[in-house]
């Protein structure tokens, strides 16, 4: 077939169809089951035909080439054979699920997840790009989580699914890092190219990490404990994921990489050890379990252990064993799980002690149990026998010691098999059922067992057509094939010995006095895992509190301390150009301004009395304005004065309110504050000095001074900078004021009501005086506004003066100034101001100029231009802001 890769999406498409037709699927579960199964089987058949013909088929689309990620697939005889198993067993499981959950609302989600999972699994085995493999790997972990936790209204399902998820995710992370390192070492992310590379260029870190990743997925020691716990999932899930497919992903990866990686000295010892340990612990655990599914899970663990050992050994002979073991296990384990499900459905329990003789009651299930269990035990002529023999053969030729260890542990596993089969087949008259199983369930259970029998019945053909090519794709000898009889080999002897030993072990296990697994017992690693999570939560709790709790001042202290320290250490105290310190001689500033400023600021920093606070702050502001004036900044001085006045006005109201609400808060201890603030002050002083010492030329300012009159038609350079050169700054500035105006409404509400007037009549002197002042104010404001472009003044100062006028009106209780009036005024002034400002910025675009360019109309020596319009916008916006605040604060302070 041209593109077998389309089969990758087949299960996903099935899932999609199921998702679209959920009610139909639920109603006609049996038909849906048959359809789905047919599709899966069809896919498997198509793959089957293509196995020996294609050496290797490739398919690739670039995805993120800069990162080495490509959507690249490859099909080798082995991955095709594995794909057959995935699809074949997928079909059986789907059929089973449809029968098991017949008419249940939970069926469609289950089918969707199973379908998606099958596609993901195919993706894992068919990926040629490392990262694509990782993608599908993670997908299988995620889907497994959802499937294991299918009955998520039960606490134990949620817990165990989460556990499995976390462990496989951690393994996935290790895998990714390993892949990145591998990619870096070899320069390619393509598996086919990697497998053709030289082992020496690969670093140990990559290999170790990849091993760890695979080991978590395939539940190898010490990451084995999640697998038995995952049995809380529904039976079809356990049968599919945790016997045939998902857990095999890990060993699949190990097997694929084995031909190359086994040349590394660490590979075989590590994997062999892990495998043996896994088998050992699984036997110990399985011996004490009474839940049938749990025992089966332990045998799965053991099987994975053996597969790990085979991948670890990595010789051609081992790869031969790998393929047959994988196949045989899938074909006997899945039906065993399904049979367990059958038994549970009919007898209501999975407890082996209560299922004595159960297999006799259900004929089909009984036969399947026998056949599959014999395969597990490794009796000829089952496929299980072949897997055992080839396993022992491969390990013997590698290392006899290893083979003996394998045989001994295998004895335990075989004993587990006996332990399952014997009770189920024993005679028990108490147990009976008259109900038959749904046919779908029986069929689904039977089919894989039949397939296993078919495989060995047609052994020469199946070996030649499928198993052989699959094995040789992994590195086995192409000429080798699978036979039952090799003569009296050591492997045979070991096998026999293991069988014999297992009978003994079984007798021991089956004694009534053999202690079963206590209810509350969770194995060591399980408890370790729980303990780890608990510790994590404790640490997290502490960290969370650290990041959040605490006084604002301590937080500020930390933040500022950090910044200050960073800045301080960056100050190169040695590299200091000599300070061009000038001394102008005693002048006003030294005698008056600076010391007064110092005093005022210190007072402001310490006082608690409202009056001294206001006075000292007022002084600070005033002195700073004077300093501005002294240092040639008249506009600044004016602005500072006006702004200061208004802030103080607002502050009065605010302080009064704060006093009324009597907020009790802690103060920080004084010494700490003192040290901290002194440090900050010193730092700032040094920073200022440092910047004063550097004398770069100032082309920007020079340009302003030169062009201000010529191109911008203004003599007040500061004003010209504000409304022309750097008008964008000013635009932002008035938007800030607009936001502040809105912010007052946001914080305080509309404040529509008017507070009751004070009893006393407003002084008529004040009223008349106020009107007079207002009269003079209007031309003053206009004058300030107009002259701004060429002399100190400008829109902002004019607006503040106007605001002062309104303030005066408020104080003299001018009747017009009701809160609704002020609200409307400020609202529309704001809109007008912003609109005019934006207009003046955008209108040049209409005449083809750049944004915010000044457009001028020259009438003799009078220059009218858009910057002036912009200044008007500034004026209106500032006024609106002031009015709104006057409104809010005036009400409050009454």
């Amino acid at each position, binding site marked *: 077939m041209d593109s077998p890769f389309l089969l990758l999406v087949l299960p996903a498409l099935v899932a999609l169809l199921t998702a679209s037709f959920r009610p139909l699927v639920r109603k006609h579960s049996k038909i849906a089951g048959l359809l789905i199964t047919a599709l899966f089987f069809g896919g498997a058949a198509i793959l089957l035909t293509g196995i020996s013909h294609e050496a290797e088929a490739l398919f690739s689309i670039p995805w993120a080439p800069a990162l080495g990620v490509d959507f690249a697939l490859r099909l080798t005889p082995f991955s095709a054979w594995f794909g057959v198993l995935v699809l074949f067993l997928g079909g059986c499981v789907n059929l089973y699920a449809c029968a098991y959950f017949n008419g249940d609302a939970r069926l469609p989600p289950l089918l969707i997840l199973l379908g998606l999972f099958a596609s993901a699994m195919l993706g894992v085995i068919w990926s040629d790009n490392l990262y694509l493999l990782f993608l599908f790997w993670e997908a299988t972990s995620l889907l497994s989580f959802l499937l294991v936790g299918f009955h998520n209204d039960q606490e134990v399902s949620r817990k165990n699914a989460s556990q499995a998820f976390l462990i496989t995710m951690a393994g996935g992370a290790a895998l990714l890092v390993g892949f990145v390192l591998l990619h870096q070492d070899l320069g390619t992310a393509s598996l086919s190219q990697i497998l053709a590379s030289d082992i020496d260029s690969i670093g140990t870190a990559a290999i170790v990490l990849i091993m760890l990743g695979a080991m978590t997925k395939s539940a190898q020691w010490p990451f084995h404990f999640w697998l038995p716990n995952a049995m809380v999932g529904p039976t079809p899930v356990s049968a599919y994921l945790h016997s045939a497919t998902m857990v095999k992903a890990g060993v699949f990866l190990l097997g694929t990489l084995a031909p190359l990686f086994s040349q590394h000295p660490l590979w075989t010892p590590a994997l062999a050890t892990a495998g043996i340990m896994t088998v050992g612990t699984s036997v110990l655990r399985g011996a004490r379990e009474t839940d049938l599914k749990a025992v089966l899970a332990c045998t799965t663990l053991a099987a994975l252990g053996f597969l790990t050992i085979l991948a670890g050994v990595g010789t051609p002979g081992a790869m031969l064993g790998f393929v047959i073991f994988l196949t045989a296990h899938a074909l006997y384990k899945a039906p065993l799980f399904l049979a367990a499900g059958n038994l549970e459905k009919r007898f209501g329990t999975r407890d082996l002690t209560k299922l004595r003789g159960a297999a006799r009651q259900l004929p089909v299930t009984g036969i399947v149990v026998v056949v599959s269990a014999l395969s597990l035990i490794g009796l000829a002529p089952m496929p299980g026998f072949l897997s055992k023999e080839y396993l022992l053969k491969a390990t013997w030729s590698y290392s006899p010691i290893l083979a003996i260890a394998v045989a001994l542990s295998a004895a335990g596993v075989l004993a587990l098999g006996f332990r399952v089969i014997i009770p189920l087949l024993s005679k028990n008259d108490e147990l009976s059922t008259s109900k038959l199983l749904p046919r779908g369930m029986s069929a689904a259970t039977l089919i894989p067992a039949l397939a296993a029998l078919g495989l060995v019945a047609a052994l020469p053909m199946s070996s030649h057509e499928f198993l052989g090519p699959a094995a040789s794709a992994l590195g086995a000898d192409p000429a080798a094939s699978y036979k039952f009889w090799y003569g009296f080999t050591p492997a045979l002897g070991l096998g026999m010995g293991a069988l014999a030993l297992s009978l003994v072990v079984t007798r021991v296990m089956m004694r009534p006095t053999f202690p079963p697994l206590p209810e509350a017992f969770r194995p060591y690693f399980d408890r370790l895992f729980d303990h780890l999570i608990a510790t994590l939560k404790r640490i997290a709790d502490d960290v969370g509190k650290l990041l959040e709790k605490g006084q604002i001042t301590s937080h500020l202290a930390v933040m500022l301390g950090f910044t200050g320290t960073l800045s301080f250490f960056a100050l190169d105290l040695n590299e200091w150009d000599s300070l061009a310190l000038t001394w102008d001689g005693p002048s006003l500033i030294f005698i008056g301004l600076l010391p007064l400023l110092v005093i005022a600021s210190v007072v402001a920093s310490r006082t608690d009395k409202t009056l001294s606070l206001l006075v000292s702050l007022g002084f600070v502001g005033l002195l700073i304005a004077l300093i501005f004036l002294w240092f040639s900044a008249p506009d600044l001085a004016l602005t500072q004065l006006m702004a200061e006045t208004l*802030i103080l006005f607002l502050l009065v109201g605010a302080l009064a309110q704060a006093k009324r609400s009597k907020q009790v808060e802690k103060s920080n201890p004084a010494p700490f504050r003192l040290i901290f603030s002194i440090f900050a002050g010193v730092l700032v002083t040094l920073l*200022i*000095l440092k910047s004063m010492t550097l004398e770069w030329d100032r082309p920007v300012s020079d340009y302003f*001074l030169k062009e201000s009159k010529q191109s911008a038609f203004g003599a007040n350079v500061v004003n010209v900078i504000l409304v022309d050169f750097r008008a964008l700054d000013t635009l932002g500035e008035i938007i800030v004021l607009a936001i502040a105006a809105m912010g007052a409404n946001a914080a305080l509400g509309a404040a529509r009501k008017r507070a009751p007037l004070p009893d006393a009549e407003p002084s008529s002197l004040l009223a008349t005086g106020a009107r007079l002042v207002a009269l003079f104010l209007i031309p003053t404001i206009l004058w300030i506004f107009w002259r701004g472009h060429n002399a100190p003044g400008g829109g902002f100062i004019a607006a503040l003066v106007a605001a002062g006028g309104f303030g005066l009106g408020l104080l003299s209780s001018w009747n017009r100034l009701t809160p609704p009036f002020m609200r409307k005024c400020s609202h529309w002034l704001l809109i007008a101001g912003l609109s005019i400002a934006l207009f003046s910025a955008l209108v040049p675009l209409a005449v083809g100029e750049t944004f915010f360019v000044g457009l001028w109309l020259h009438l003799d020596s009078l220059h009218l231009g858009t910057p002036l319009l912009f200044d008007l916008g500034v004026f209106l916006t500032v006024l609106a802001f002031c009015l709104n605040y006057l409104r809010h604060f005036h009400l409050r302070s009454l």
Partner: protein
Amino acid sequence: MELLIAITIGILIAAGFYRLLGGTKVDAIIGLILLSQGANLVILASGGLKRNAAAILDGTPVAELADPLPQALVLTAIVIGFGILAFLLTLLIRPTK
């Protein structure tokens, strides 16, 4: 002179921080007021300070004039600070529900 100015500004900033770390809401506001004024002075001071040389083009040789750019920056900073401080005060006077 530069040294004295720098020290004065440093003291102003120190006073601001001292107040800011005081703990109450009023402390924070006063501290921020002082600090923002200090920051404005920092900008002006780093730009270089000249006496009697307002940046008005009325015939004085350009080279003697003070640097207008820091002044413009400080003006913008004053206005922005003004707006923000006013907003901050509204947070203080909110009626507690």
